[in-house]
């Protein structure tokens, strides 16, 4: 078989697909437009457009007597948002989100560190499976399973009884605010379920960030006299920070917006998500519901701004 071409340059490809392909090769900007057009339209119109429409609603108000929306720009709804009862909801949700994020990061870091630095081959697969597996099962089922675990007659109470540690559980539940009749109706229970459900979103970005840190930077720090603690503080942590921030954006914003977990596991006191659900549903107060949704957006914006000021993205 000869592979020598008879001509130095081959003729144009005859079929239509070939001609299109040649045309796109010559005009890469057309290719880019074709590839990016649909997703940009989707993002711009359907996604951002609907979000913007929602935000717009928050500047309208509701007529208390007729229950109809008054389409005039006003800040009345925001005034309502900052009333004591509603502001309590915001503070409660933000505190919960912050606690959940902090503990998720504390638990996720060692797991991610092990996966990034030590796990190889089979153990890496086990790690990914272990982290992802809960994400593949229904969110509702997981939460109801947790309700059963945390209930007064549940497995956790049983385990504490068998270990003669029931006094510890009762002591915890008797604490103000975080306690309650049982774990399943306390903030502690809500917190545990939040941490469980969002954990993969914290582990994966931290693991990705740690994986990108060359091992010889750790050695270099040690070589220059840095103790393991100093190496963590001055090298490992700053370089992992973008991953921790990325993970915390997930856990923080997901907790801010969730309305199912606190409804199933927790007390009757509302979180932002539940407030939105109640305002747009039974209360029919779309403007106030919209105003509530603005809160997480503003908080996340502030959080990112602060993270940037702290240099969280310097190593990107």
């Amino acid at each position, binding site marked *: 078989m000869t592979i020598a071409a008879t001509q130095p340059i081959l003729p144009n490809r005859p079929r239509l697909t070939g001609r299109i392909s040649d045309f796109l090769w010559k005009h890469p900007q057309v290719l880019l437009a074709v590839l990016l057009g649909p997703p940009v339209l989707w993002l711009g119109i359907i996604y951002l457009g609907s979000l913007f429409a929602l935000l717009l609603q928050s500047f309208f108000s509701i007529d208390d007597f007729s229950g109809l929306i008054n389409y005039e720009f006003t800040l009345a709804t925001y005034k309502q948002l900052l009333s004591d009862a509603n502001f309590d909801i915001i503070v409660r949700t933000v505190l919960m989100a912050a606690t959940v994020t902090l503990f998720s990061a504390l638990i996720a870091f060692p797991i991610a560190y092990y996966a990034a630095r030590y796990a190889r081959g089979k153990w890496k697969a086990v790690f990914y499976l272990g982290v992802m597996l809960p994400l593949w099962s229904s969110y509702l089922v997981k939460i109801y399973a947790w309700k059963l675990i945390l209930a007064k007659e549940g497995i956790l109470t049983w385990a504490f009884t068998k270990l003669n540690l029931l006094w510890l559980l009762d002591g915890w539940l008797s604490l103000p605010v975080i306690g309650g009749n049982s774990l399943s109706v306390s903030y502690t229970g809500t917190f545990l379920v939040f941490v469980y459900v969002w954990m993969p979103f914290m582990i994966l970005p931290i693991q990705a960030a740690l994986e990108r840190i060359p091992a010889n930077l750790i*050695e270099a*720090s040690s070589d220059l006299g840095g103790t393991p603690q100093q190496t963590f503080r001055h090298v490992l942590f700053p370089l992992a920070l973008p991953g921790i921030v990325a993970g915390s954006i997930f856990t923080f914003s997901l907790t801010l917006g969730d309305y199912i977990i606190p409804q199933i596991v927790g007390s009757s006191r509302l979180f932002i998500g539940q407030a939105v659900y109640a305002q747009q549903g039974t209360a029919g107060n779309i403007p106030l519901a919209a105003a509530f949704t603005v809160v997480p957006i503003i908080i996340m914006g502030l959080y990112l701004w602060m993270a940037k000021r702290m240099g969280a993205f310097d190593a990107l």
Partner: protein
Amino acid sequence: MTAAVLFENVSRHFGTVKAVDAVDLEIAAGEFFAMLGPSGSGKTTCLRLMAGFEQPTGGHIEIFGETAEGVPPYRRSVNTVFQDYALFPHLSILDNVAYGLMVKGIGRQERHRAAEDALAMVKLPGYGQRRPGQLSGGQRQRVALARALVNKPKVLLLDEPLGALDLKLREQMQEELKSLQKSLGITFVFVTHDQGEALSMADRIAVFNDGKIQQLGTPEDIYQRPQTRFVADFVGSSNILSSAICARLGVPAAAASLRPEAIAIGTSWAEQLTLPGTVTARSFLGAVHRVSVDCDGEKIVVSSPAAMPLPDIGAEVQLAFSRNDLHLMEVA
């Protein structure tokens, strides 16, 4: 006088792989010591044993008379210049250089002043505010050097530090490293696979292969009097003459090494040894021609000055060399 680094029967095995196998080594204080060998020969593992990144599976290591095995890297007065420099990407150049002083708790002003001085020493004054990503390879290499030297280590370890630089820069850095070592008087241990680099810089060279030291000596020793076929072959490209050819030359030996540049083509004096052969290939290398000659089925490479007349391929030639240039080896 205590040795800067002492290895007694040191081994580092990874499972069944003997990366370093029963190595004895004594590096004198203030010496420029090179560890030369192909990749996988154990030279880098030896360096990592000195730095403390690896612990020996057997044997004893001393650094300036003190036991080093079981001592973590951060408690050794030994600093490393890494092959790919390992600069901290999130810190400025100044903070990179000052890192060792920072973790020792030295105040900001003092450590920054020391870092500025170290940067000036490696000819990068005023680069302190940049980031590692904004520097060229050669500049990063100098920063890595400054970062190690600012700690005034007892021993400086260099892991192929010039490997990533282009030829011109490499030659320049070789000279600078050598003069820096002379003026500072610090023991340098230098790992390289480039025999030219080892020969030109080191006071003594250890040639590694398969986790063992093949030969240890001055550059002249290693180059002129290789003790094994491996050393003769790896350090420069010596010709190895078989016992049959040795016998023909009247020097009974298992094998002998002969440097390409010790051979002349055509001309000979009475006291010289000669070998007839056929030219099989030739190439121009700038200052010299490299000529391959076939002598009874054995290939002998001759490095002939470019000014000398060049024989054609297929020509019958006489190879002439002095008996003194022929180094007998005990093993083939």
